[in-house]
């Protein structure tokens, strides 16, 4: 595994629990949308902690990589990022990892992306890449979050949707009494899955589901109930 000392160049809050960290790498290593990197922190006595985070930036933006890190209350690494890390700090990052939960432009579509909370992060990389290279592969993002403030990247996703090039989005909020216009209320259920599938021009070639384990399991089983082949479903389960 190759490790590099990356420099934090920018810090942007994305939601009450998620902050984006932009890194400049001594050497940019090409990656595939959906991949993750490991972050390695080292204490003065040599103690190390290592965690993986999905890449949010597109493979085309080679001057930085963006990691959107959710703060886990009992975490060891994510609270450090939220509370300690500043612009200018050096953090060790691994080369990109993961050969399964990935999308390449030539993979085309249609595809359904199902993200729960910060599980939307790898889909940002895919959607950004798709727009940057001018792909018109049909891509529908089904995004579930707790409240409207937890819909991270919403402005950007709205802009991508506004391009009218085959990228669509369905959002649903599980803990919001009065969701904003165009946003559903409640957990992902059979109706939302059916409605999302119906908005694609054909049966998806691949369904990607990312989020907490219960979220992923629920969405995956609903997709299977809706007639999707289990082998077409790629999952990424967060939770550490």
């Amino acid at each position, binding site marked *: *595994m190759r490790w590099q000392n990356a420099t934090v160049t920018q810090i942007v809050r994305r939601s009450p629990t998620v902050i984006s960290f932009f890194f400049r790498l001594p050497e940019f290593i090409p990656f595939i949308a959906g991949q993750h990197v490991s972050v390695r*922190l080292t204490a003065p006595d040599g103690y190390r902690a290592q965690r993986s985070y999905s890449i949010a930036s597109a493979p085309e933006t080679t001057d930085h990589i963006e990691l959107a890190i959710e703060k886990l209350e009992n975490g060891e690494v994510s609270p450090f990022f939220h509370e*300690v890390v500043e612009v200018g700090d050096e953090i060790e990052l691994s080369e990109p990892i993961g050969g399964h939960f990935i999308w390449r432009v030539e993979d085309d579509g249609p595809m359904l992306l199902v993200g729960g909370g910060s599980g939307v992060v790898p889909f940002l990389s895919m959607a950004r890449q798709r727009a940057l290279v001018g792909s018109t592969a049909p891509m529908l993002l089904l995004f579930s979050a707790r409240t409207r403030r937890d819909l991270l990247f919403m402005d950007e996703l709205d802009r991508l949707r506004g391009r009218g090039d085959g990228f669509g989005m369905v959002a649903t909020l599980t803990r919001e009494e009065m969701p904003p216009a165009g946003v559903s209320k409640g957990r992902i259920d059979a109706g939302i899955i059916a409605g999302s599938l119906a908005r694609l021009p054909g049966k998806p070639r691949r369904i990607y589901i990312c989020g907490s384990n219960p979220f992923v399991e629920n969405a995956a089983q609903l997709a299977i109930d809706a007639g999707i082949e289990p082998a077409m479903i790629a999952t990424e389960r967060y939770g550490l």
Partner: protein
Amino acid sequence: MATRGFVGRRSGSDETGRLPPGQFLESGFPVLSAGPTPRINTEDWSFTLKNGIRPVKSWSWAEFNALPQSKMTRDIHCVTTWSKFDTAWEGVLIEDILGDAFIEPPTGFTLAHSYDGYTTNVPTADLVGGRAMVALRYEGKPITPDHGGPARLLVPHLYFWKSAKWVNGLQFTEKDELGFWELRGYHRYGDPWREQRYTND
């Protein structure tokens, strides 16, 4: 190089020497897998031992449960850096499966197969000698589907992706054939004590 401001949250058990490098102690039992949890009915379940492409023997759920049952309590280590101590499993040791099929291991390489199409390679030597089992029970209860039930491979001395969930067969192969994650950037062998996480570690 130390990371500015990082001290870390050490677990006391670190001092017992049971935590491999780069791991932290987890009290829960996180679930990770590359796809949906398959729906497996024990009435339809079967387990097949193969030598190359040739099936040697298959067992139904009832037949498999009638094989000698053994207990193993072990520390487990996930490549995503969590470890869990003293996990208690019960199932059938690999040598007891081989014994019931009246065969000695024919090759040094084994590929485990699962209901969802997942595969993982383990040297045969790592599966015998009481080091591995097909587990049917966890903490005294049937293994839940998200943790690999009804049956999962348990090879606790290697990173836990080697302990294939929803296992339905072992296949002896002439050479070391890489499995699902091993073809996707993860280490061929996966020894947590040598931190063999990724292909070239």
